[in-house]
């Protein structure tokens, strides 16, 4: 197929050509970035929490009337005892926070007591000897807490643990070249000895500003004696739903002087995850919707304009056919024409896509767009163009040579 006559003909349709090319360019720029945003969000969604989510329930409990720390200690002991006896419960512990809960305590972890010279931030989870088995954490080194190591902490007490268990990500940050076991780290003015390392335990926060240390967590051996406490409950296999029905009633049977919200006081971890990532999922859905409709609109626009061109040139097509051009020639003429327009469109669009990405990076802390997205988008739009032009081009190829002789 010769390109020169196609180019010559395009010169007579400058406006239409420019419009299709512009539409393809803009579509490419938007689609690339939208797909990239979708990918970023889905990547966040699929980041593992490190815990055995499918068998976990969480309870948000608040004791009424501001009991003293001593009272809370006995209330908590009674609750833990009761929860352990609920049929179907495998294990339970009390804490301040859990992964994806979107609230908790963050401490800087460093090599010296100087609080301002920390290496990295880490989420701080209050834990006891049941925490590892309840969450289903994989221990890679060292040991678990012992019951006699679990201290108590009232509301404004100082967190100064003698022993800590940390995540592998945090261990690597602190001691890149050696095992962390037995070494001191500082989350307070006093040293804490690392006694265990777990494979993975995500922080409570999903916000992108805290993504850098999203796997850095410290388990500290404390029961926090404040009126608000979270219980994390592990159900026995296939007992999750049954257990979740029993928990609230079981705790209210111990004392009614408490608040466990009937609405979301007891949540399965699936619900916790759903709530934590609602915004990310929403953004992915919105961008996906925009992308699909955008491709449809652009495809339909190409069909429309190409049909018009075919209709306009029936006579010329007839002449060409009468002069010996085959149906194939006509078909490939329109396909080539579209390919040329689309190629110029994606060339501009590629630059636009990168420009838009650079601007979005500056405005919204986005990452750099991978070249793969641009290339993928280019291929997709070229295919879309060819697909869209196919029907009008086939219609053109069926124009009979007789048309050349018709005057209207």
């Amino acid at each position, binding site marked *: 197929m010769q390109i020169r006559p196609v180019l010559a003909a395009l010169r007579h349709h400058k406006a239409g050509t420019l419009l299709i090319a512009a539409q393809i360019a803009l579509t490419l720029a938007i689609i690339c970035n939208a797909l990239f945003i979708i990918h970023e969000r889905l990547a966040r969604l699929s980041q593992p929490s490190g815990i055995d989510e499918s068998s976990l329930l969480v309870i948000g409990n608040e004791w009424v009337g501001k009991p003293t720390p001593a009272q809370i200690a006995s209330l908590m002991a009674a609750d833990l005892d009761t929860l352990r006896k609920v049929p179907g419960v495998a294990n339970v512990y009390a804490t301040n926070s859990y992964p994806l809960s979107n609230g908790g305590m963050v401490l800087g972890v460093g090599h010296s007591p100087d609080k301002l010279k920390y290496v990295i931030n880490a989420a701080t989870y209050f834990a006891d000897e049941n925490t590892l088995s309840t969450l289903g954490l994989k221990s890679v080194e060292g040991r678990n807490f012992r019951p006699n190591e679990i201290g108590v902490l009232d509301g404004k007490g100082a967190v100064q643990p003698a022993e800590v268990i940390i995540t592998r990500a945090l261990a690597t940050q602190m001691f890149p070249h050696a095992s962390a076991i037995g070494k001191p780290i500082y989350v307070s003015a006093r040293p804490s000895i690392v006694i265990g390392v777990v494979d993975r335990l995500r922080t409570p926060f999903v916000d992108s500003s805290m993504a850098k240390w999203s796997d850095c967590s410290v388990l500290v051996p404390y029961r926090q004696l404040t009126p608000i406490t979270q219980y994390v409950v592990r159900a026995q296999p296939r007992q999750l739903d049954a257990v979740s029905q029993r928990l609230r009633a079981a705790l209210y049977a111990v004392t*009614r002087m408490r608040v466990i*919200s009937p609405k979301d006081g007891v949540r399965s971890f699936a619900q916790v995850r759903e709530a934590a990532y609602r*915004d990310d999922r929403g953004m992915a859905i919105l961008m996906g919707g*925009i992308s699909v409709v955008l491709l449809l609109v652009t495809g339909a626009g190409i069909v*429309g304009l190409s049909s018009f061109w075919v209709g306009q040139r029936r006579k010329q097509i007839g002449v060409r056919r009468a002069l010996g051009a085959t149906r194939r020639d006509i078909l490939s003429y329109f396909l080539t024409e579209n390919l040329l327009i689309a190629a110029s469109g994606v060339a501009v669009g590629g630059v636009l896509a990168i420009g838009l990405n650079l601007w979005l990076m500056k405005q919204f802390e986005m990452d750099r767009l991978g070249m793969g997205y641009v290339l993928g988008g280019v291929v997709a739009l070229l295919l879309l163009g060819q697909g869209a032009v196919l029907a009008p081009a086939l219609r053109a190829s069926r124009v009979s040579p007789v048309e050349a002789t018709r005057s209207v």
Partner: protein
Amino acid sequence: MLAYYLRLGLHSLRRNPLLTALMVLAIGVGVATSMTTYAVFRAVSANPLPDKSSRLFVPQIDPWGPQARLDGSDVPDALTYTDAMALMRDRKGARQTAIYPISHTLIPDDVSREPFHVSGYAAYADFFPMFEAPFVYGSGWDRGQDDAHAAVVVISSQLNRQLFGGASSLGRTLRLDDHDYQVVGVMADWNPRPRFYDVNNDDAFNDPPDFILPFTHAVDTHTDTDGNNNCRGTSGRDPGWDGWLRSGCAWVSFWVELPDSAAVAAYRSYLQGYAAEQTRAGRFHWPSNTALFNLTQWLRHEQVVPPATRMSLLLSLGFFLVCLVNTVGLLLAKFMRRAGEIGVRRALGASRREIWLQFLVEAAMVGVAGGVAGLLFTGVGMSSIGLAFDPDIARLAHMSAGLIGLTLLCALVATVAAAFYPTWRAAHVQPAWQLKSN
């Protein structure tokens, strides 16, 4: 003549139903996506107190020094208890209040009812007149009761309905955890969005607070903050409640009302002077670093509009732009296809202006139809908005008369603008050429 053009336009649009539908749908979808995301954007970026926002200010005092900002972080967006109390004592503004979010369990008088969780704020008396909080019964407390650490409370109309059936509860007692409070006021439904006075705790779009009680009393009862407690830049603190109050931890919000620019300038220099005094006294080891934001500046500083919301709006507008380029192309095709008809009309005496008007009317019809389609799609978008946005934010966006008007107007204006070039081309068709070929 206009009626004739309308008839012509309708006829032409009917001749190519598929092409017409395509244009109408593209404009409809484009305008609807933009309107839906715009409605969300407008809801979150609204000025919550338009008549007063230029007179309300947030002071900022750097309690940690430049050393704590080496990692690129900002000066904390709350004050330490020490600084907040100093500003409260000096009362250099027309009105001022320190604020922090608190929560309690509420024990109903009726013992058959279970206790429940309530959340609210600890604030000073100036809170109510300063933020123009409306009351159904009673009013806020006065400065004397601040100083007396009075156990009084102002409750929301919702809580008043729940506890007292909506009747006046003035003088009644409320049991919050281990203390009794006397109700002195019931607020009317009041929930400015974004909740500017608490945006530093990410609570910009929540349900209204259930209660507000005196700051001085909340501190007396050791009521912990329900919001952020930021100790990042401190060198640690003593244990216990008093250790926390004395610490460099930032957790108190502070608002001050300054009636005019002279007062603003005076307050700025007062803040500078206060911080310099702290440096002289040896509490701060760095040159004073203070700032004063007005309400709108503060909302921007705190990035109250979620980046995702702005990004969705921008990409939706880009999408609308593509839809318009698409419309330009299709209109061009549609109009130029009728070059012959234009030639005949021109030959029969129609002026270029009339041709131009005729096609503009046709395009406007597409625009109106696109607007109606856009309205339908916006309705769909609004009802499924919860899929894409935080529910707290999603329920703020709703179909208003203004939005309906804007949708129609956008579709019409955009389509007519898009039709400008195609109609110009149509008006410049050479009649002689068209007639010759026939």
